[in-house]
């Protein structure tokens, strides 16, 4: 479903600030696969998602979605294949517009937009049904401005908007990180439900290792622009948070060893 092939991405190439964010990345996701991505700060997790969504272009390599090479398409041209939820709860919705207007925008994902009314009675009924699944009572607040919602409510709405039109790929970048534990739990539960319901091919970045193990069907760990660990469902089930922490220690140890060797 998603094939990232031989992708390299370096920021500020050729300057003193040169920063290799991705090195020779090869990653394939089968349809319906739900991959959680962990790794230290600056490992390149967000960059992989941004290369997939088209926000960034790779220096080399290709991105293919369901057989279509999208490497050269801008982000808005790929949007019909991709649903995204951002880390910042403010980022995924339009605060000055109402809940139903936001949903109407999401409903038309990637289609040609014309002069038909954005919100109709029929769509409204559908939006209400969808909102009920969040169990936040938002179905009774269709005409409330989204800017009035709490961070958790907005993030749940973003998740719904990113998924209810069944995109081919779902990209989640630390989408529970800005929420308090209770809200984070809620959004993480909703994520599992919605991915299951629509059988979405998903890439989810998280710093929460327990969450990375609990959710999804596969786990990858990144470090300095490389994928250094790739666990399938079976391996993942046998892995504990302690095991993952141990892997992290090994990397750090490795870095130390390199340095000691140089000296």
């Amino acid at each position, binding site marked *: 479903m998603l094939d990232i092939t031989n992708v390299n991405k370096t920021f500020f190439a050729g300057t003193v600030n040169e920063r290799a964010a991705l090195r020779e990345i090869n990653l394939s996701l089968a349809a319906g696969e739900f991959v959680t991505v962990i790794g230290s700060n600056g490992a390149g997790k967000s960059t992989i998602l941004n290369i997939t969504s088209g926000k960034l272009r790779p220096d080399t390599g290709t991105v293919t979605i369901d057989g279509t090479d999208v490497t050269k398409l801008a982000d808005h041209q790929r949007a019909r294949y991709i*649903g995204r939820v951002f880390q910042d709860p403010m980022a995924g919705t339009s605060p000055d*517009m109402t809940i139903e207007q936001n949903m109407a925008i999401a409903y038309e994902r990637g289609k040609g937009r014309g002069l038909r009314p954005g919100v109709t009675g029929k769509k409204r009924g559908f939006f209400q049904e969808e909102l009920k699944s969040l169990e936040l009572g938002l179905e009774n607040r269709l005409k409330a401005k989204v800017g009035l919602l709490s961070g958790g409510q907005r993030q749940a709405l973003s998740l719904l908007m990113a998924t209810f039109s069944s995109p081919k790929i779902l990209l989640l970048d630390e989408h529970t990180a800005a929420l308090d534990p209770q809200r984070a739990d809620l959004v993480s539960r909703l994520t599992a439900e919605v991915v299951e319901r629509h059988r979405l091919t998903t890439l989810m970045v998280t710093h929460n290792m327990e969450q990375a193990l609990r959710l999804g069907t596969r786990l990858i760990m990144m470090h300095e622009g490389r994928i250094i660990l790739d666990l399938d469902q079976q391996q993942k089930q046998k892995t504990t948070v302690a095991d993952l922490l141990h892997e992290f220690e090994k990397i750090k140890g490795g870095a130390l060893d390199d340095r000691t060797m140089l000296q």
Partner: protein
Amino acid sequence: MIVAVELGLIYAIMALGVYLTFRILNFPDLTVDGSFTTGAAVASIMIINGAPPVLSTLAAFAAGLVAGWITGLLHTKGKINGLLAGILTMIALYSINLRIMGKANLPLLREDTLITPLRDAGLLGTVAAIAVFGLLALAVKFVLDWFLHTDLGLAMQATGDNEEMIRSFGVSTDRMKILGLALSNGLVALCGALIAQYQGFADIGMGIGLILAGLASVIIGQAIFGSRVIIVASLAVVLGSALYRVVIQLALQAGLNPNDMKLISAVLVVIALVLPQWKLFKRVGGLSNMKKALSATGARS
């Protein structure tokens, strides 16, 4: 005073255009000063050459579309700062407007215009004329309201509100900005065409400083009449425009010189931008929103 309200209702069409760029798209567009005169010039020269007034006025609208489209292209494809893109088009239009007009002033007094029937019937300066111009302004307002609630219009609203989000749903924000700027300047040029016919001439300087009148109308209207939902906000713009002309008229009657009007407009806008920073006025939502729109775009672009 009736004349001031009449004028205000015609200028409301321009103010609705300014509302579309400043408030909906969050884009400080200065093309307005040029495109207003372009509309007046196109309509006047066509009428003088015997074209039907309705066709001439529609042609003015089309000319405004093109002017806004160019500012949009400069900003999105040319990656030129929004304020500068507007200024570039505005200044270039000055020369183009002179070319269209052939001289600095085109009198229309002996021509048949859209206003002639009203004038011949002796209705100008009466409540009947206010009703006619009021209906015209409301018609434009309703079309704008309708447009902003279509799929395309919602995408345009979101473009001014959260670009990253609307792109993630497959909308080209560049295209939305170009379209919005074109429509806005189309309305402004349409207004220029009507004003030329109303006052009986087109003048090369008639658009100078107009953006401030537009802004002042939007600010005053929304501060007084609110801006919570679009149908209210756009009505507030129409009323704000009428009110602005009345205020100007009162200032003139109080003995101020017509040449001071630009200064007064500027001071009005400055007050509207500065007041919301004081605690006492913080609750006036319309003002602080406006402030946000203006300072945010200024800083971002």
